[in-house]
């Protein structure tokens, strides 16, 4: 299985600022995803992080608000830009290795509180 770490684990930010979340995988993964999870709710897919090209965003999410980078097969970042209290949530990254089936491996999440 792949081990995924995220930094920071939590943060408290001021309205209008930006936060970049890092996701590191211990082995190469084919695909990486970023999710948002409101407290007590299910997961909502933000985007698929594509290596070396622009991420593929889901409906309701745009690059200006959530820029994503994926420079190689083991690392990705998600930036939450110009934050508002509505962005308070848990942000999760996950990865899939095609050779290991269709299981998604998740990072521990980043708890974000925007004041």
């Amino acid at each position: 299985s792949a081990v995924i770490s995220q930094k920071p684990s939590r943060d408290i930010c001021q309205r209008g600022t930006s936060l970049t979340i890092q996701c590191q995988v211990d082995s190469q993964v084919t695909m990486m995803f970023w999710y948002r999870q409101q407290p007590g709710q299910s997961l909502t897919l933000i985007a698929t992080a594509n290596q070396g090209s622009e991420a593929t965003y889901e409906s309701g999410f745009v690059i200006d608000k959530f820029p994503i980078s994926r420079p190689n097969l083991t690392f990705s970042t998600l930036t939450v830009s110009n934050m508002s209290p509505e962005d308070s949530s848990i942000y999760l990254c996950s990865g899939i290795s095609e050779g290991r089936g269709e299981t998604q491996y998740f990072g521990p999440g980043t708890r974000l509180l925007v004041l």
Partner: protein
Amino acid sequence: SQQGEEDPQALSIQEGENATMNCSYKTSINNLQWYRQNSGRGLVHLILIRSNEREKHSGRLRVTLDTSKKSSSLLITASRAADTASYFCATSKDSNYQLIWGAGTKLIIKP
């Protein structure tokens, strides 16, 4: 977007009892997966069942899939306090590996 519903939304049982959670979905699928999440942390994959399978076991877990009813169930036998968590089903429809998630069931095992 969410594929369907899970029920119950919350389940509280005594340690040692069996816990059953259900998941319904709306469209055709390639596979259905169950994940566990402890206290808002990352999710852990439990089991995957393909659309041509009807039942699968893994340790104390038993998953069934009824594609005619578009539903699945997760049974945890002989529950333990450590099973306290939220359980999510997720369906995969095509080859892009994206998952569509259910709303989740919050399971509490009382010692």
